[in-house]
């Protein structure tokens, strides 16, 4: 990548539209962590964002949605739009059909399984269309309708590696901005909340903790954009940079949640408070089954600790 972190004018315009849309729908700065709303989802799909194929545009969309805590299987749907073709693809990008995508481990916990119509079973960089034999819905921390499933594989998708890379990039972009939203909200609070005669942001215990979060999030956001440029330029390192971006953004966003909870004091642990709706979603998004191990495998291979056969 050249030294240019901008996403381009087209992407910037998309970001503006999305920001307006998300705020109009939420009626405030962020969407509360309510249950998934099919209606809201279809409205989002109506903006035709899931037809986008360029990583920079997708990053623009996801950054805008991350800032507003927008719900839904966003990264998955971007990936699914790359995997599916024809009628299925049209129904997915229009919001008529919902896709659940993930790895299958242990007791079969699977994101979005409770309400999905199509299943994509991933195994590292391979992906298979699958049929659900059984689905047991579960309630989760982030209010996403997951389920425990038994799946049966059908056909294998082509180009799965690229679709999974775009899912990682999309998630990285979302998480870095969700974390950024929290840090900005906490910084505003720290400027106006006075204790012992001074704004609490004057205390290094508060200011330094937020500065550390801002730094981690800046690295994650920059890395996500690097990965997007890599993806668009079809560079070889795109898979590892996308995995790194997702891991980095997840780590930074989770640690921002914790610091920001602390900065808001008791208000931050109330349901009315601004932190938990975002923090719980961040946790959920960073814990998809198997995602950790797959990202780790890409990174360890890249640094030479393991060879691809041993993964």
């Amino acid at each position, binding site marked *: 990548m050249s030294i240019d972190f901008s996403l381009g004018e087209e992407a910037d315009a998309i970001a503006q539209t999305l920001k307006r849309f998300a705020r109009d729908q939420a009626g405030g700065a962020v969407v509360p962590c309510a249950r998934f709303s099919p209606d809201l989802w279809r409205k989002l799909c109506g903006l035709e964002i899931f037809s986008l194929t360029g990583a920079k545009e997708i990053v623009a969309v996801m950054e805008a949605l991350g800032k507003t805590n927008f719900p839904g299987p966003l990264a998955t749907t971007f990936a699914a739009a790359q995997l599916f073709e024809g009628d299925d693809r049209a129904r997915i990008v229009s919001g008529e059909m919902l896709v659940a995508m993930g790895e299958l*481990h*242990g*007791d079969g*916990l699977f994101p979005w399984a409770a309400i999905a119509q199509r299943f994509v079973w991933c195994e590292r960089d391979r992906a298979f269309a699958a049929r659900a034999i059984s689905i047991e819905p*579960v*309630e*989760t*921390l*982030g209010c996403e309708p*997951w389920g425990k499933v038994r799946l049966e594989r059908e056909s294998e998708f082509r180009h799965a590696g690229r679709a999974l890379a775009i899912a990682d990039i999309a998630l990285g972009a979302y998480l870095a901005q969700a974390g950024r939203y929290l840090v900005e909200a906490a910084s505003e609070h720290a400027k106006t909340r*006075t*204790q*012992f*005669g001074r704004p609490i942001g*004057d*205390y*290094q*215990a*508060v200011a330094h903790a937020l500065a550390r979060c801002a730094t981690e999030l800046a690295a994650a956001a920059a890395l996500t954009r690097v990965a997007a440029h890599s993806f668009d330029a079809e560079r070889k390192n795109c898979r590892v940079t996308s995995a790194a971006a997702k891991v980095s953004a997840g780590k930074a966003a*989770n640690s921002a949640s*914790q610091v920001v*909870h*602390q900065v808001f*004091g*008791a208000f*931050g*642990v*109330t*349901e*009315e*408070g601004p932190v*938990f709706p975002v923090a719980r979603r961040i*946790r*959920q998004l960073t*814990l*998809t*089954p198997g*995602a*950790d*191990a797959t990202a780790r495998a890409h990174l360890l291979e890249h640094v030479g600790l393991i060879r691809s056969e041993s993964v």
Partner: protein
Amino acid sequence: MSVSLFVGSAEEEEFRADVIRFISEYRGLNGFHFQGSKWPEVKALYRAIGQCGWMSIGWSDAAGGLGRSAVREFILWDEMAYARVARPPLGAGIVAKTLIAHGTEAQKQKWLPPIRAGEKFFSLGYSEPGAGSDLAGLSTRADLHGDHYVVTGEKCWTSYAQDSDYLWTLVRTGAVEDRGRGLSLMILDLHAPGVSVRPLPTIDGEQLNQVVLDAVEVPVEHRIGPENAAWRLVKDALDVERHVQFPPARLRRDLEELVAWLRKHEHELDPVVQRTVAALGVGVFEVEALALLVLESVVKGRPGDVEAAQNKLAHAELSQKIARAPFELGLSEALIYGPIEFLYRQSTWETIGGGTSEIMRSVVARQGLGLGGRS
């Protein structure tokens, strides 16, 4: 039975066995985490504790207590925490001990018997919207009108106010500039005209409360200690109650639940899981040791501000480390509603309620190390 680091005398361990026997009838109650939603059951439990004489176990004979040492109180509430049945009520601790030390005879007569019996309950009305960490900045005013005060202001984050009878409250009777020297301590009837209690639901599924006080009349004889002298009383009360506030067995229980959960999901052989759990196990020992330092300071009547701050800090942070471990380990099943997911939400407030970790570090820095203080 919890495997506590602390082993008391033969009599003390006999007492522990009595407590465990008593608790066995209440297993599964979880009034420790759900006092609000389980209030009728928790109230019945407190009454039963009162009937055993244990509400007043550490009060002097003269005050109607059993006159036992702080060690018994520690054992009682540590076992209650381990079994998750209940937390020490404010009335039998801070309120009663302050009344015993500083109250008038009439005040002792009025409040100690129902507290001892587990019949009357108190909430702590210190924090306000403008005064959390900086308690000395509070602004709820109490103005004297003949034989009563008129109290106007707002308290917030008040635990259990929805079920309590009284608010043990700090109010401003002096000038704002006087900070801590302008505060008085009062017992305010939560059912008096002018009091309104609004729930503030919390992320653990329970609630705190906003308590609005609109010209509430409080009889002068409900003021505890002299006017404008509350600061000293509040500090003294903490000194004699700090050994039961953060019972370490709660953390041992958290760790046991984590281990059971890891086994259930077959993660126990993963070397990274093992390393994490071993480190948490050391953490539990450390917090128990710190809690015993606090207990020692209370038993020996030594100042223990630094020990108490270190204990609170380590306790709160370890509760979060235990609850967050499965999430940090990337174990997605932790997201499913259940004991681990609950601890994750609940422990979020441990580093805030009862004084934030930042303030605890400031106390350790200032009083323990002679360093700068708040920044």
